[in-house]
């Protein structure tokens, strides 16, 4: 039966809200398929505002992968801002997809991609507006399956009660496996009801309700074990091994509304083995798998022609580390010479940036922001976090950038890293002054700038720092204040150095949500009932609300906010995510943690792309391997260019 569009009921509300264009869909690249011709229907949700969610690569990739299949339909849904939420509640308009404005409750699956833990409360808003019971245990066969994925779902325990299924790792093949199981179950007449479907999904994904968690009297976890026969004790992540076989997005969705990234992005490799100890993305996405220069070239040519974007983003966790990054940059800049299409590398390591990249990124007349992330102010601290970048690397790199015409460089740091002292943070001021001095000399002018951006460090699951005590927010704030003072202290540099910081309190809540267990679900529910929305946005975040909620929801438990955040864990403690396998060997992670805090100074780990394998465990247990070039192939500029009339 066709499902009716809610648009006629939504439309009268739109003149009363801010930026109504974000709710109407109709973007170039969006797809509306025949409802009745599909037997498996996905509502893909990025649990944040449209302006943040639309450019998300994960959603765009899955949207295309699913919609390319016959009999499968995928639409998108995002969080509505509180102004529209209020009007929707008043008029009984449910959570809708922007593609065909179908109610989310009519779909077979609600697939939610979590890039950040701060979006957990947004999940509850979506479920509630959709009319889907918040708790998995209260849903029946008429409700969509609620499936989570994304980096922030690698420890889904805090939201386990709200989810039916969790997919770990790369989504391309996983969504098709899930689709096949749902289709088979529907065609067979839904054997076993919802439970039957979940049991079959437990073979390919994590189904939280099939695992029981028990606790020790002191609050630590005793064990996490399957409660059904046939359910595996641990669940592994998915890894797509051939990125050239999955060249998505091909036809990106081009928003009419303004969004946070206005460019065609192509992922040039997935995974990172630099081994930064704080970096969850680098740990859970191993091994490195490069996309070939030829596939990158054809994706860019097709993507730019299909979208009309004037910027190409070469995405990855550390883009300058692609084995053929110089060739890619030179050849693409050749192709787009004279077309006003610019290139950007959103994530570039200080020690991998070079003159060729500086020239090619600026060749087409625009110099999009250049950002580097030394992360730690002192050399000692950078060793602790295994960010092997020397001060000389940084000075050399910024000198190259300023000499190539950039006027502004951004530097990212973290505060509250393990073993950090006040002096480590104050060293950032020293570093920023050297950057300006070197930049003024290289550029031959005084009006260059450098912005120091710093936020509190949050220990993440599946990293060597998963056992670490998070720094108290008061300490983080005191160090940030001291750094601000030090940056302003020297008049000769004051105006040349900008300072942006995120205070420590939201970081503590992120810490609670990152390393929490199932008991934290009660806190999330309490905070949401108390009005928590868009917690990743400083204007909506309320620390007091979270304190209140943690206190009331955990009353009578031997655990609380500090227990989850500022407490160091030991080797023997069962961590809430120990049954979820990113491939990393737990003993290797522990040793790396010990190496980082060794009293005689941290031991560093090399990148296994260029040095022998140090057995982090991923390739051996996941059956994967590093895939890097060079291929030696070059791109033919004229053949890549889309046809331009009149030239």
């Amino acid at each position: 039966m066709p499902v009716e569009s809610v648009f006629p009921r939504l439309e009268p509300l739109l003149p009363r809200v801010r930026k109504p264009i974000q709710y109407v869909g109709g973007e170039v690249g969006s797809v509306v398929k025949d409802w009745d011709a599909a037997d498996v229907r996905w509502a893909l949700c990025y649990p944040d505002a449209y302006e943040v969610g639309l450019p998300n690569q994960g959603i765009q990739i899955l949207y295309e992968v699913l919609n390319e299949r016959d009999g499968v339909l995928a639409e998108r849904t995002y969080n509505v801002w509180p102004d529209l939420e209020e009007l929707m509640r008043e008029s009984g308009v449910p959570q809708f997809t922007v593609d065909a404005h179908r109610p989310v409750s009519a779909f077979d699956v609600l697939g939610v991609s979590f890039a950040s833990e701060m979006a957990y409360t947004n999940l509850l808003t979506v479920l509630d507006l959709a009319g889907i019971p918040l708790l998995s245990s209260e849903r029946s066969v008429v409700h969509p399956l609620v499936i989570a994925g994304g980096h922030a779902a690698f420890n889904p325990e805090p939201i386990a009660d709200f989810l039916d299924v969790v997919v770990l790792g790369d989504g391309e093949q996983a969504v098709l496996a899930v689709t096949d199981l749902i289709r088979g179950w529907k065609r067979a007449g839904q054997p076993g009801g919802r439970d039957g479907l979940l049991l079959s999904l437990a073979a390919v994904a994590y189904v939280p309700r099939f695992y029981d968690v028990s606790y020790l009297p002191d609050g630590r976890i005793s064990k996490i074990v399957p409660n059904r026969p046939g359910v595996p004790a641990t669940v592994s992540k998915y890894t797509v091994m051939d990125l050239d076989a999955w060249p998505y997005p091909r036809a990106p969705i081009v928003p009419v509304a303004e969004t946070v990234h206005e460019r065609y992005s192509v992922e040039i490799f997935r995974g990172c083995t630099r081994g930064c100890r704080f970096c969850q993305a680098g740990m859970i996405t191993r091994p490195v798998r490069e996309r070939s220069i030829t596939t990158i070239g054809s994706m860019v040519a097709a993507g730019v022609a299909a979208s009309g974007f004037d910027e190409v983003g070469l995405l990855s966790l550390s883009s300058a580390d692609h084995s053929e990054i110089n060739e890619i940059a030179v050849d693409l800049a050749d192709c787009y010479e004279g077309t006003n299409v610019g290139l950007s590398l959103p994530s570039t390591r200080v020690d991998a940036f070079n003159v060729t990249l500086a020239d090619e990124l600026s060749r087409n007349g625009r110099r999009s922001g250049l950002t580097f992330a030394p992360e730690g102010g002192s050399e000692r601290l950078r060793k602790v976090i295994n960010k092997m970048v020397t001060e000389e690397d940084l000075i050399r790199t910024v000198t190259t950038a300023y000499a190539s015409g950039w006027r502004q460089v951004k530097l990212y740091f973290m505060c509250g890293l393990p073993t950090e002292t006040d002096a480590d943070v104050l060293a950032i001021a020293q570093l920023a002054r050297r950057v300006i001095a070197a930049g003024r000399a290289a550029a031959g002018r005084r009006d260059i700038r450098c912005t120091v951006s710093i936020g509190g460090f949050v220990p993440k699951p599946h990293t060597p720092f998963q056992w670490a005590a998070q720094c108290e927010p008061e300490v983080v704030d005191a160090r940030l204040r001291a750094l601000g003072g030090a940056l302003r202290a020297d008049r000769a540099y004051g105006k040349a150095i900008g300072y942006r910081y995120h205070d420590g309190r939201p970081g503590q809540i992120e810490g609670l949500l990152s390393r929490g267990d199932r008991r934290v679900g009660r806190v999330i529910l309490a905070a949401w009932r108390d009005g928590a929305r868009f917690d990743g946005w400083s204007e909506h975040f309320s620390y007091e609300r979270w304190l209140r909620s943690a206190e009331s929801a955990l009353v009578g438990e031997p655990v609380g906010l500090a227990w989850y955040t500022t407490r160091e864990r030991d080797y023997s403690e069962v961590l809430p995510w120990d049954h979820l396998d990113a491939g990393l060997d737990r003993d290797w992670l522990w040793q790396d943690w010990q190496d980082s805090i060794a009293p005689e100074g941290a031991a560093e780990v090399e990148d296994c792309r260029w040095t022998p394998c140090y057995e982090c465990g991923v390739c051996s247990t996941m059956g994967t391997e590093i895939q890097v070039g060079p291929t030696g192939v070059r791109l033919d500029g004229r053949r890549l260019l889309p046809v331009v009339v009149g030239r």
Partner: protein
Amino acid sequence: MPEPDPRSQLPAVQHLVVRYAKRGKMRFASHRDVARAFERGVRRAGLPIAYSAGFSPHPKISYAGGAPTGAASEAEYLSLALTARQAETQVCQRLDAALPDGIDVIEVTEEISGAPKGNLEASEWRVVLPGVSPAAAEQAVAGFLALGEAPVERLTDKGVRRLDARAAVVEMNVIDADGIAAEPDGGQRAAMTGHEDCAILRMVVLQTAPAVRPEDVLTALRDGSGIAASSPPLTTRLAQGSRALLTGETRS
């Protein structure tokens, strides 16, 4: 080290005036949203658009004052500067195909030197008022037209703006609903409100500074006669042009 030279750009050899419509869901696009869509549209269409020089080159597209967010339009205008001559019909077709549905290119003509935008001195608007009876609307319109001035206030991002809604209105009358349902846009709303009273206003409003919008006129009608729509009115710009041209036509 010397300042790097700004990239040189090809000169413009042709200027085209594009008339386009903002229909259906795209009426919720703001001026900036429409501008973004056109910048991407011209590139998708492969048009040889001219760019400004400098470090941050921008495509040379200039927009005449757009209809407000939420208002539909059959008569929006912009001009394009091209670096190679194109046939107008080709540009019309290619550009329309490259834009999202609802931002529809109606006509492309070569710009005659001597700014045609100077001629866009007035707009003809049609406003559908759900929940207002035609008789009540007739009375309100007569009352409004008899006023010497109609001061209204509008809340903007910059604060409260005070305007004289009457001064900008050249013509206003109540028209029949006949024919609207057959149009590409507006039919949906007409059907929605088919069961209740629904008045349709037509007005010709001068482009003034500060601009008087149809919503300001509706505010004045509400203040003067107490007529108010039961759900948000649907406003459509039907035409733009000289005052003489728009008032010479009778549509009622």
